[in-house]
């Protein structure tokens, strides 16, 4: 296929991010030409403040060096401005006289600083704060001049003022509103911010309207005069009063603009060959001035440029962070409140901490934090998810660590960690390594950080911490990972959408699912295939066919792979009960196959470790026991205590209850592993409080707890219901597990599922509604009916080739 021509006007973060996304999914579709006004390759504009403050050098903030363009085969025209778009002939004309034809055009011209239309605005020494040139001018001026005036007390203005102060200038910030950052902070937080900036030597004039900038005979700025009559001297004036989308080129070409180039959800302008992204666009009436939305737009736009046509940009939630080292503030959503909303406020002015949360209809709708922003990321997540707060409301102000949602104890405060502190215990990644990767490689998302550092790529318990580090490092450019994100890179769709389609359109095979859902890859990847396999099987039991090649090796081989490629074998011991004959067979197998280690597991069973793959089937055959499913996203084990039969405290037959439950749930696949426990009295020796379903016997019946977890994050199970009979225990437990099987996303444990839908919802489905409960229980029994024990099936010859080497070469 002949390559199409793609021209990009604008060599900034939005345009180049779009190119990167495009190259990742359609590397050979276009000849790409990039025009950029500035004589630099793409750099991280967000990090201009650290450059101004002297914390980083320009070379540190370059995102794509010239060599990157060369390697990607991009025709880069730096320092070359486009003068005209000729839509009729589909060409762009540049001011160096060159002319480039396009099949697709991407406008990413960004924004221009708004310059107050006042006398003196053109004097030498009056600048804006937008690019590296402005930054360099400020640095140079600071070396020879003394007085700086920054007009505008917004994010950019304050960062400029702070940088100039650090460079040794006397800085006055002039601001129209009554407090600083009035669009990001409420008055209290704004005043706290002002105090701490004053302590750093900045001066403020609030509520002042600038009337004119005065100059000397040489045409250089000398002073600023206000409507109030006051005048202050100035050698440098930085205008940071806002930005305007840069639409001149588009408008001249007749493309519809309305406070920005108007684009659809596909980032397409009114000319279907022309796309636009970044600060120059107006999407659903909003022109974004922060970086996170640009990246979301870039992803969608690249998808359409690659002619895949499935992504939609639906707008962005924004959060704010000031990049002034040592000042922590964070705000997101509607932090001013209003009719019908409530405020929770924690105020400690002496300690320099102020937090305000706005709640409406049991949802967090805004947050404004000053002094302690540790939980900013968490609040932002709650806000974006629109999660019902419920019981969380009582604790929300005290932060995520307080509700036990962070994970490893004492590791919840990214801010306070040293660079040498370990963040990811699985892969041994320290905070410093993560911060360095984020800065050096220009990472903005959790996925990027996972890929480059491996942090949080294994057990995931440090995910929250890594997100905090990201947030702290890149500030407002941080891209939060929504829970409803796409399953993997093979698709735009999330778990909920996929599951719904499989149910509503009765998709029974992997092929039909990938085709119907327009998967980008021919046959998925190691992330989505197991998920799809589970959704097919759980939605259409006895109809959809299991695909062993879409299962992780443990579920394919029905044993647990170990680091040396051998396997571990755990036979079923219902309720942890065994007998002499089984133990003898286990001992014989251990001898016969020279098993290197025999170990008792935490689930009251026996593990034979170090079995060669080709021995698995004969080991199972010699054991003569069923699979313990200790390797799958499936029922694992039901742990029990001895109960009333032997124990002097026992109130019920907990051992038999465990055996009955394990029998009922045999061969059950689930979104993630499922563990149960039954204790015979409230002393709870079976540790039912940390199981997916925990049953505790009391004298008058049984108490059921759900959503406990003893692993990555210790979670205490929540009380569901108290029942009288053993039959009811099975019905309630079965119904809950079926609900989890039908509704949880793949790889969500019960605790995650309950956190998403809420305990009230579970109670309503399982406890209040007897008909639904019975129906759920029935569906579980139907799904499990007639399923063979996987070990027995393989002894009979199923999946034979899995266990036998193809050939042995001497």
């Amino acid at each position, binding site marked *: 296929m002949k390559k199409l021509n793609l021209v990009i006007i604008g060599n900034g973060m939005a345009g180049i991010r779009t190119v990167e996304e495009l190259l990742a999914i359609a590397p050979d579709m276009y000849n790409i030409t990039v025009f950029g006004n500035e004589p630099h390759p793409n750099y991280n504009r967000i990090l201009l403040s650290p450059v101004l403050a002297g914390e980083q050098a320009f070379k540190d903030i370059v995102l794509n060096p010239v060599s990157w363009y060369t390697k990607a085969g991009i025709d880069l025209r730096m320092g070359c401005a486009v003068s005209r778009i000729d839509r009729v002939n589909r060409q762009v004309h540049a001011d160096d006289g060159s002319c480039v034809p396009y099949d697709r055009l991407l406008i990413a011209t960004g924004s221009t600083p708004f310059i107050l239309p006042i006398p003196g605005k053109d004097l030498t020494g009056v600048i804006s704060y937008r690019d590296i040139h402005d930054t360099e001018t400020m640095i140079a001026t600071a070396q020879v001049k003394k007085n700086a005036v920054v007009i505008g007390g917004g994010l950019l203005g304050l960062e400029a003022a702070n940088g100039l102060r650090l460079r040794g200038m006397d800085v006055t910030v002039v601001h129209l509103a009554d407090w600083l950052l009035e669009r990001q902070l409420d008055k209290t937080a704004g005043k706290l911010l002002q105090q701490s900036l004053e302590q750093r030597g900045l001066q403020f004039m609030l509520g002042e309207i600038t009337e004119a900038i005065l100059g000397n005979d040489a045409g250089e700025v000398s002073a600023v005069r206000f409507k109030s009559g006051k005048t202050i001297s100035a050698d440098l004036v930085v205008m940071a009063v806002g930005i305007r989308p840069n639409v001149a080129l588009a408008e001249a070409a007749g493309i519809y603009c309305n406070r920005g180039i108007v684009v659809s959800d596909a980032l397409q302008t009114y000319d279907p060959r022309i796309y636009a992204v970044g600060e120059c666009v107006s999407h659903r009436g909003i022109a974004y001035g922060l970086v996170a939305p640009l990246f979301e737009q870039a992803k969608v736009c690249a998808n359409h440029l690659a002619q895949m046509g499935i992504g939609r940009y639906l707008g962005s939630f924004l959060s704010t962070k000031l990049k002034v080292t040592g000042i922590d503030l964070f705000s997101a959503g509607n932090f001013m409140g209003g009719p019908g909303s409530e405020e929770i406020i924690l105020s400690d002015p002496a300690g320099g901490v102020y937090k305000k949360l706005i709640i409406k209809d049991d949802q967090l709708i805004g947050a404004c934090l000053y002094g302690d922003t540790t939980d900013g990321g968490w609040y932002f997540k709650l806000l974006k998810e629109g999660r019902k707060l419920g019981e969380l409301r009582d604790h929300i102000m005290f932060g995520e660590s307080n509700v036990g949602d962070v994970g490893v104890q004492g590791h919840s405060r990214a801010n306070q960690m040293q660079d040498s502190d370990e963040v990811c215990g699985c892969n041994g990644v320290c905070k410093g390594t993560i911060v360095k990767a984020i800065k050096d490689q220009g990472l903005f998302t959790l996925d990027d950080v996972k890929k480059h550092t491996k942090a949080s790529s294994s057990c995931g318990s440090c995910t929250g911490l890594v997100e905090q580090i990201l947030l702290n490092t890149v500030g407002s450019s941080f891209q939060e990972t929504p829970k409803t994100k796409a399953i993997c890179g093979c698709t735009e769709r999330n778990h909920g959408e996929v599951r719904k389609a499989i149910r509503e359109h009765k998709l029974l095979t992997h092929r039909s699912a990938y085709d119907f859902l327009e998967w980008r890859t021919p*046959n998925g990847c*190691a992330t989505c295939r197991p998920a799809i396999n589970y959704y097919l099987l759980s939605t259409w039991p006895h109809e959809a066919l299991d695909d062993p090649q879409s299962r992780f090796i443990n579920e394919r081989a029905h044993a647990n792979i170990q680091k040396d490629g051998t396997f571990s074998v755990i036979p079923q011991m219902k309720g942890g009960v065994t007998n002499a004959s089984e133990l003898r067979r286990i001992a014989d197998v251990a001898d016969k196959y020279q098993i290197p280690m025999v170990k008792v597991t935490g689930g009251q069973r026996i593990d034979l470790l170090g079995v060669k793959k080709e021995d698995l089937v004969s080991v199972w055959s010699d054991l003569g026991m069923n699979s313990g499913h200790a390797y799958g996203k499936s029922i694992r084990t039901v742990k029990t205590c001895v109960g009333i039969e032997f124990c002097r405290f026992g109130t019920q037959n907990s051992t038999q209850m465990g055996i009955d439950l394990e029998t009922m749930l045999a061969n059950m696949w689930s979104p993630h592993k499922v563990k149960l426990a039954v204790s015979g009295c409230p002393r709870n020796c079976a540790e039912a409080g940390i199981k997916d379903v925990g049953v505790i016997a009391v004298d008058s019946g049984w108490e059921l707890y759900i959503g406990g977890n003893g692993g990555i994050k210790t979670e205490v199970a929540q009380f569901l219901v108290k029942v009288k009979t053993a039959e009811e225990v099975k019905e309630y437990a079965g119904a809950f597990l079926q609900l989890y099987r039908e509704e949880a996303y793949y790889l969500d444990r019960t605790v995650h599922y309950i956190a998403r839908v809420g305990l009230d919802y579970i109670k309503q489905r399982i406890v209040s509604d007897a008909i639904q409960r019975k129906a759920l229980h029935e569906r579980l029994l139907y799904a499990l009916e007639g399923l063979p024990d996987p070990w027995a099936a393989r002894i009979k010859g199923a999946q034979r080739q899995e266990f036998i080497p193809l050939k*042995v070469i001497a």
Partner: protein
Amino acid sequence: MDMNARNDWVQLCQIDEIPLLGSRLVERADGNIAVFRSAAETVFALLDRCPHKGGPLSQGIVHGTAVTCPLHSWQIDLSTGQALAPDVGCARHFPVKVESGFVFLALN
């Protein structure tokens, strides 16, 4: 790698004996070899050792023309043995061919 007649071709099996989007193991004293079959019926052979920590690639999930190592999820390109970015490393790859439905592997 030189694919000429100097190769010592060993007949392994019929192509159907390797599961689609799956692999089979060839045991060998100098290190096992994993033989993969893609959905497009292409056959690949790699040394059964992930360049990361030696994981058995033959036990991984095959997708497109890559395999994901079962130990730490590195993705290895089946045609070159190179780890996919941002990981860096290479598993040795061996010439394979399919003739009249039979799979042949070259060891030297």
